[in-house]
Structure formats: structure tokens, C-alpha cells
């Protein structure tokens, strides 16, 4: 019984690269028409939309008016909206007292508020359809916290509470809300980490893998598999939950 999204329309945010692109490919492979969002247009985003037979939906999701516009554009072009995958994220790290206040809030307003604005924008359309699936990409750090990541961890933990609350609030309307919490995943973000640490990408991979029971970091498609499950309209009974894809890192640290 694999997921069948024939005739469904999905919006995936932060989809130009990394995990978002994997989610979009996975949902398209399951039959959905997928609109791929990112903060700016790019050759990558257009190529992805072309590859999966979808469309681009460019805009800054930290702006509520932009969320309404993005969603309206998708619905106008594709006729409906069944699935939202809120995958976009902005991350900076700094010791608490060194973290610039405006930047601290930019992390929270992008990750947490942006998802809130998106949910508000998609709800009327899901209510029209009589059902919907909202999958929020949180993070392992939203569960465990992390040094020098107060803004990011707070935003991701806030997303988990938002999901639990919306799970309760919207399930009676058959709009099912859940979260995925990825651990360390092989995305372009790791190159940023490597550059910041002044080491090779391979060294960063080994460093992270050494604290993961499965002995390796994850792949974007492994997280996308959880997104696909939570976007499956044959599964309603998973409500307000967080599915971790982290190789066991929150269970034990070797």
C-alpha cells in the first residue's frame, strides 16, 4: 500500500535544495502536482519544478501577505491545495548574548511565524476540500535543544507545540497536522557548517556520524519518506505527532 496522491496538489516551502527538494520529488512521485516555494527564484527551483511537472511559487513566507498571495497563486493555477509541507528554515547560531536581536527574531519569525502564516493561508482551501494534510519540518534540536542555537531551537520547539495544538484543533475537520524532526541530514547546510569550522565536508560528516547510533548521517530522501507517510490521505489516525528521523541520536549518544 504505497501513498497515492493522484489529483492532489501540494505546496512545499524551502524547496530549492536539500530536504525540500526531496519532499517535492517524493510527493510528485506519489502522484501529486507540487508547487515548490523558495524565498527567491533560481535556476535550481525552476529546474526542479520542470523535473517534477510542477510549478514554482516564489515568495518570502515570513510575510503573511506573501503567504496569502503564494497560496492563492497555487490554487488559481492548480485548482486546489491539499497538502502543505512547511520545510523552509533560516538558521544562524551564536552565544545568547552575542546574538543580534534582529537576527534572533528573524530566525523565529521565518521558521515559526512563517509556518503559522502559511497554515492560516491554506486553511480556507483545505476546508473547502473537506480534508487536508499539513506536515511541518521541525528538527532534532527542537526536541533536545542545542548550545548556541537558542533562536533555532526555540523556533523548532515552538513548531512542535504548534503542531500538537493544531493537530487537536483541526483533526475534527479531517485536516491532519503532524511534524517530522530530522537529525543531521546530508544537505548543503553541512557545507556551511564545514566552512564555518574551517574543515573539509567529509570531516563534518564523520564528526556528526560518530554520535549517531546508526553510524552515519541521514539522506534527504529518508526524511521525505516520513513526509510522504504523513501526507497519505489513507492515514488519518496519526494526529499531532512528531516522527524523528535521526539515526537514533535522541535515544542514545555513543
Amino acid at each position, binding site marked *: 500500500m504505497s501513498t497515492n496522491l493522484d489529483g492532489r496538489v501540494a505546496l512545499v516551502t524551502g524547496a530549492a535544495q536539500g530536504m525540500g527538494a526531496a519532499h517535492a520529488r517524493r510527493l510528485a512521485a506519489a502522484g501529486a502536482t507540487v508547487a515548490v516555494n523558495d524565498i527567491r527564484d533560481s535556476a535550481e527551483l525552476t529546474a526542479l519544478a520542470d523535473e517534477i511537472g510542477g510549478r514554482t511559487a516564489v515568495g518570502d513566507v515570513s510575510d503573511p501577505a506573501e503567504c496569502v498571495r503564494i497560496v492563492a497563486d497555487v490554487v488559481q493555477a492548480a485548482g486546489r491545495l491539499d497538502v502543505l509541507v512547511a520545510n523552509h528554515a533560516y538558521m544562524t547560531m551564536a552565544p545568547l548574548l552575542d546574538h543580534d536581536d534582529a537576527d534572533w527574531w528573524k530566525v523565529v519569525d521565518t521558521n515559526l511565524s512563517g509556518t503559522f502564516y502559511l497554515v492560516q493561508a491554506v486553511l480556507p482551501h483545505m476546508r473547502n476540500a473537506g480534508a487536508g494534510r499539513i506536515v511541518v519540518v521541525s528538527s532534532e534540536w527542537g526536541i533536545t535543544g542545542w548550545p548556541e542555537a537558542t533562536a533555532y531551537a526555540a523556533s523548532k520547539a515552538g513548531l512542535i507545540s504548534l503542531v500538537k495544538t493544531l*493537530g487537536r484543533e483541526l483533526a475534527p475537520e479531517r485536516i491532519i497536522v503532524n511534524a517530522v524532526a530530522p537529525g543531521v541530514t546530508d544537505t548543503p547546510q553541512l557545507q556551511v557548517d564545514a566552512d564555518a569550522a574551517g574543515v573539509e565536508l567529509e570531516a563534518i560528516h564523520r564528526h556528526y556520524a560518530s554520535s549517531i547510533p*546508526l553510524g552515519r548521517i541521514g*539522506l534527504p530522501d529518508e526524511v521525505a*519518506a516520513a513526509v*510522504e*507517510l504523513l501526507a*497519505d490521505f489513507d492515514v488519518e489516525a496519526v494526529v*499531532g*505527532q512528531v516522527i524523528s528521523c535521526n539515526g537514533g541520536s535522541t535515544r*542514545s549518544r555513543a
Partner: protein
Amino acid sequence: MALVTGGASGIGAAVVEALAGRGFVVGCLDLSPTLGGPDYSVAVDVSDPAAVDVAVSEMRDRLGPISAVVTSAGYYEMAPVAEISPDAWRRMLRVHLGGLVNVARATLPDLVELRGALVAVASELAVGGGDGDAHYAAAKGAILGFVRSLAAEVAGHGVRVNCVAPGPTDTPLLAADSPWRADDYLTTLPLRRLATPREVARCVEYLVCDATFSVGEVVNVNSGAVI
């Protein structure tokens, strides 16, 4: 080859169907096997370690080495804690926790060899507890602790051990007059209805086949009963 305990009915039977749909040859251990469904069945009480060893061995001879295990065998009964007899307590632990441990021991060499996956069926009551559920919740809660620990122990061998925790599910385990079927209870669920065996089986299928970066994870399929 996938081995499913308690595969003759309810969630187990739905798991047999789901895994067969993903291309597995499926063998079933059950107290009372039924015809049809699995490719081969052995009648066994999973609380008996020696009998499980024999049954698993027979299963391997018949269907080949085991790359996936789902432990779904179990039963449900409610009682106030003062009325749970030592025998009732012991039986509850032996069937649920013992049924998992015995089957895990018997199949682990194959799972390591094939870098396979094990999924235990726990319960929402393991997470949230419930009035009148002391022995059932304790047994299912022990499954969570076992799963997380075994997951950490064998992850380095490439074996994934995970868990589903179903809420009240529309199976024969739930009597027609069960309080879990009453409207008063169902209206407290965000989804307003029981989970179905197919929904639980879909999550088990995900953990067996697709959750290649999850270990020690508990997927809650409970209509929002515990969030």
C-alpha cells in the same frame, strides 16, 4: 521474509497484508493461526521461549532467513490494580514483553546478517496510562524501554528497531461493549473515531520498509488520544 506474530487477526493480519503488498514473503506465529493471509503459519504461544525457538526455526526452514519482524501478538483486559492477580500480572508481562524478547532473541542473528528491521506493537496506554490499565500499560511501557535500548544496541549492525503505539483500534481485541467504543470516549478524540488496523499497518509498513534513518522511534497512531 517477514515474520509477524499475532498475524491471524486484527492489526497483525493487516500487517501481513501490507507487507505482502510490499513484496515480502510473510510467515506468521499465532496462538490460533487462520488459513489464508500469510504464506506459512506456525501455532505457538509467544510467551514460551523454547517453543518460539522451535517455531522460528521451522519458519526459517520453510520460508528462508528473516529480514523483518513485527511483534503484534497480545491481548487486552482491564482490571483495578487491587484485583490483578499475580497470575494475571505475570501472563500480561510474559505475552507482551516476553513475546517481544523471545522473538527478538530468536531472530536477531538473521536480522544482523540481513541488516533487517524489527517493529514492536506497543500501545498508546504505554505512553499515557489509563484507569484500570495498570498491568497492560506496564507491559506495553516495558516494550518502549526494551525497543529503545535494543535499538541503540543493534543500530551499529545496521538493524533498525522501532515501535508503533496504536490508540484504541477497531479490532476483535476491543469488545463490542468496550468503553473505548462508547460515544462518550470517541468524542474526546481529536479524530472522533477509533484507528483502523489498516492505518496502524501502514505505519508499521513505513517503519519496516521506508524509515531507514529511524531507530528507537515510536510512531503514535491513536486518533490524537495522546499527543
